[in-house]
């Protein structure tokens, strides 16, 4: 198990390293003159030159990459080109907001979708399954921007004030979270259903039934216990969906999260901000996956105890 964790960690480090390179390469290709953005539309050439030297944009790319990575790792994320604000606290704050929204979304989406998936699988082919299938299908076709726009139509625009007490904060997050929930819901429910069906087909289920165990015990103790494992993976994969979905949701609801900050950074050609957001997102995504992997391993005796 320790070896497994170490291997996963090394793997994660490598992936994130290559990804950081990719992020750097892509952002370096961004067209447009950063200094022009910083200084606005009304300054002259001389000021621009000085600004470029100031930002180290005249250095060769590899030097810039390693400087950037080194500073990033040391927690020195610099300040945003376009607003001059310190990036670290800004990103941390927005990350915090996004994580609140994401957490609430998962909190709604995962239990419901897993329950729906399990229910559908246990009633495969019967009306409950059909209803759930139709529901999740209908929901599959609703991109966040459609759901969001419709929800705003019906329920009005949610409060967007910061620093509210907990329950109010949850209330304010409810509509955006619901928007992000829908697609996730369908996706997780469908995969869970497939996973449980797969487990139900396994021979050990018949073994349990043939012991004479009540159906309830067979389902809870045997089937769900095993079906939980692939579900963990499904939920982990859905993080990616969630992150993508949140970008749209935060923009629809004007929610101060990382996704909106990201679109902001792109439209402003704000490289350091963009790089920081991308890297932190990748890191978060990777850590979430790692957590899921480890949870999977911890619950799966095949990995936990080896042979």
């Amino acid at each position, binding site marked *: 198990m320790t070896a497994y964790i170490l291997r996963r960690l090394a793997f994660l480090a490598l992936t994130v390293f290559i990804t950081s390179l990719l992020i750097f390469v892509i952002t370096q290709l961004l067209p*447009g*003159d950063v200094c022009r953005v910083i200084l606005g*539309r009304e300054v002259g050439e001389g000021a621009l030159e000085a600004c470029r030297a100031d930002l180290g944009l005249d250095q060769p790319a590899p030097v810039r990459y390693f400087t950037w990575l080194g500073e990033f790792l040391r927690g020195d994320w610099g300040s945003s080109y*376009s*607003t001059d604000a310190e990036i670290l606290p800004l990103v941390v704050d927005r990350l915090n907001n996004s994580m609140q929204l994401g957490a609430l979304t998962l909190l709604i989406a995962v239990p419901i979708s897993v329950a729906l998936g399990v229910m559908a699988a246990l009633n495969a082919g019967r009306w409950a399954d059909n209803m759930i299938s139709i529901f999740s299908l209908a929901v599959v076709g609703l991109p966040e921007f459609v759901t969001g726009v419709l929800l705003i139509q019906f329920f009005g*625009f949610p*409060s*967007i004030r910061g620093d509210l007490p907990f329950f109010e904060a949850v209330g304010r997050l409810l509509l955006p979270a619901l928007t992000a929930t829908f697609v996730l819901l369908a996706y997780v429910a469908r995969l869970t259903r497939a996973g449980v069906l797969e487990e139900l087909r396994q021979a050990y289920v018949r073994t349990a039934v043939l012991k004479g165990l009540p159906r309830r015990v067979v389902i809870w103790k045997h089937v769900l216990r095993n079906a939980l494992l692939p579900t963990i993976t499904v939920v982990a994969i859905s993080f990616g969906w969630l992150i993508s979905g949140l970008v749209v949701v935060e923009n629809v609801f*004007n929610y101060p999260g990382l996704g909106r900050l990201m679109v902001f950074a792109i439209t*402003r050609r704000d490289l350091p901000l963009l790089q920081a957001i991308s890297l932190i997102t990748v890191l978060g995504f990777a850590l979430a996956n790692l957590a899921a992997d480890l949870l999977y391993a911890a619950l799966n005796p095949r990995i936990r105890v080896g042979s």
Partner: protein
Amino acid sequence: GPAAATPAAGETPAAGEPASMEPQGTLRVAFQPLVQTDPALISSDSEILVANSVYDYLVDIDPVSNQPIPRLATGWDVSDDGLIYSFTLAEGVTFHDGSPFSAADVVWTFDRLRDPAAEYATSTLYENIASVEATGELEVTFTLTAPNAFFLYDLSDNHALVIKDGTEDATDFNGTGPFTVVDYSPEDRISLEANPDYFVEGQPGLANVEIIFFSDETAMVDALKGGQVDLVMRMSTPLFESLQGVDGIVTVDIPTNGFDLVRLRADRAPGSDPRVIQAMKLATEREAIWQLVQQGYGAVGNDSPIGPLYTAYYDPNVQPPARDVEAARALLAEAGYADGLDLTLHVPNTGGRPDLAAVLQQQWAEAGINIEISVEPEEVYFGENGWLEVDLGITNWGSRPYPQFYLDTMLVSGAVWNESHWSDAEFDALANTAGTTLDENERSQAYAQIQQILVERGPVIIAYYFPQFAGISDQFIGFQLEAFAGRTDLHTIHVAP
């Protein structure tokens, strides 16, 4: 001074007595995020709205009478030759950091703004100033090199906010204005608080202002409808229409001289051939555009920045030619584009501009002008100087109290924002006359000729003058929408009794 023209007068939608003299209540305003915070660099409505709340101008322009009125300057004297202006400054004014305000701050501010080396937009505007001197603790004297009929209006330029003496980097919001900045969070919001030491009695009326940033007008209006913000200014016509009859919201619309300028670069192909812009003008059906994009709000345009609101200068007889697709085609063919002309039209994503682009694309296509539309966030369109570079673009120009501004910054040869890179000697001469003469008749005549020239050979198409829209919660009174939305004073707003 010159008899001021009388353009857009704002309206006072919700009148009434303030609930109390103490500032109270929070106004939440939805607006685009800021790009610049240094008063010398600001340009967008939201930037100016913030600056106008945090700093003070020396002179303000009254939205109703359109006449210069005191702000930091309590009064002024103009010499007979129109070259020397001396101002008396308000007493007991302090900056937010507690330091007292004096004439030195005014000198510093205007010396900075007119410094040619800094290459600010105001550098050219204030070229005409020979010197700015503190002639007393609270007295400033401006000396001009030539008479300027609109000098007081120039002093009220959007950038001319007074900063503290010695400030190099003016991004720290240290003004004398009615509000102080509590918190600025670049893509989220800026929180303002009433300045308890503000020198005008009874102002500001609000204890707090939150300007919440939205990149998206629809979301702003949704938020207003949902009661999540209290004030939205500047929106597209359909959005404004959608606010009609919503409970608890007062809508305000005023005609303005603001316009969406369709302009073609004149210094290189294809625009270097004047027949091309002429063909475009012939291919354009202004009335239809106005109906579709503005739904009848505002006014139809006539390709000149001197709109009908400048009643003293506007010449209703000067009209662009009626739409004639065949003639347009013929002109294009003469210019060498018999097989059609392909161009990219750059458009900021706000207001009715994307719609204008869509309609133009359709109208022009019939004449063989094929445009591809690139809709860009406003901050991108202006952010990288793209708007000064591209061949074909649509730029929104806000409303100004006097027309000379447009000519001097947009159309005379070498003007800072001469985005069409147009140069016409006759036009330049007329513009100069209009700007410097102290004879009101001469000025009117010059403006009439200018309108004629622009219709005949100007590099721009102005299809309409847009209205200014706002929606505000009925919980507030004292809101007076300005034609240039960013210049709206937040400090006159109060909570309704």
